[in-house]
């Protein structure tokens, strides 16, 4: 089953990278207080960990979209060389 969160994943990853860029920019501009700098730095480190974690995530599945009366279903499908899928 595909979880709904997966949908938001791409967007959130993009947002995380954007935020990371903002943070680096802000820190590089250097007009933050030490407290703010530390907060930004911590947020940045967390985002880096998150993004890297997502990229290093498990290999995703290859699936086939199957339309049924009740809606859609995903079935596994593979592409080994002798594979000769139906339809």
């Amino acid at each position: 089953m595909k979880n709904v969160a997966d949908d938001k994943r791409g967007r959130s990853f993009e947002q995380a990278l954007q935020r990371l860029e903002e943070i680096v920019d802000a820190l590089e501009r250097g007009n933050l207080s030490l407290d703010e700098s530390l907060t930004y730095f911590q947020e940045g480190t967390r985002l880096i960990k998150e993004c890297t974690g997502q990229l290093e995530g498990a290999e995703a599945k290859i699936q086939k979209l199957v339309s049924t009366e009740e809606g859609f279903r995903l079935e596994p499908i593979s592409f080994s060389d002798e594979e000769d899928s139906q339809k």
Partner: protein
Amino acid sequence: MNASKKATSTAPYTVSELTRVIKDLVETSIGFVWVRGEISNLTLHTSGHMYFSLKDESSQLRCVMFRSANASLAFKPESGMCVEAKGEVTVYERSGQYQLSVYELVPAGLGSLQIALEELKRKLAGEGLFDEGRKRSLPAFPWSIGVVTSPTGAAIRDIVRIIRKRQPCARIILNPVRVQGEGAAEEIANAIDEFNRFGKVDVLIVGRGGGSLEDLWAFNEEVVARAIHKSEIPVVSAVGHEIDFTISDLVADVRAPTPTAAAQIVVRDKQEILKDINAMARSLVVAMKTKFTTMRRELEQIKSRYGFARALDVVRQRMQRVDELSKRTQTAIRNLLRQKRQLLDAGFARLRALDPHEVLRRGYAVCRESASGKIVRETSQVRLFDKVDVELYRGVLVCGVEGVKENEKRG
């Protein structure tokens, strides 16, 4: 009407009249036609209008293609080239010649498919389906990629291979379709609709591997074009090879020259992204270090400023005062001790003064009755000729009492 009336009359036509009649007949009865032939005597007038003849083994047809029509030609016509021309037969009254006014010109051999394609292209373009303005940008980081293609073709293998290599954790969902033959276009269009109803993909790749013009035909069909146009999910078309251009390519948000290229366009390489992130991580650390350095420098500056120096001075003053007080305390204790010591010394001195030996040293002597050893303080204690011992500072005199004198003063 006019012509038939004239025909029954005996009055002769003027040349202009007859030409006008012919013109009317020709232009109203033939209309738009497609004509196939070989181009000859091609001249491009400085006005931009193009004049040529179309000929076959036995006939020739004079043609004119006005600048407004030939400006949009997709190829360069040359004498000897076989073409198909769409136009209407008109009569040029000044020379009394009929000619084909050409509106469209395509290389021959493309056949009726190509002609239909050109017409569909024009129609869809007219509706704005190819407008650059409506093309959406692709998501920067799609985690779920929908693919509409054949499950057995080279395209899906190429797409899977590239996405796996560049972004292993991106999900690939295939909606398998036939990509050629009867009903293929409807299947492709339906698959695109299905993905839109399914909704959980970030981007669609629609396409197939290389093939003949007929093989790729489904991607030139209106139903596919409309499905792509309607899609809420951004669509990348990937049909055939670099040189193949289909209507799908024109409608899609992005045209990829091949399925492999489509996969490369859709997912960024993981290593590239990691490199970017690492660069940002480095910048982050450098920026933080710089911040610390700046803060330290500021701190130094503040420390050197008068206000802070004064504050420090207060502290130093206090410290000095504490030192001073402790020194005074020590002195006080030392003095007290010294006083006690002096008292003690004085006591000793007095004690020493009481020592009988000290008295003898000063020249006094102690007189004792020899028999009893009692100290003789008064003359009455002894009688004449008694023996007495007189103790001096050094030594003792043994004496006899030879007389007594009273000491009036001491009485």
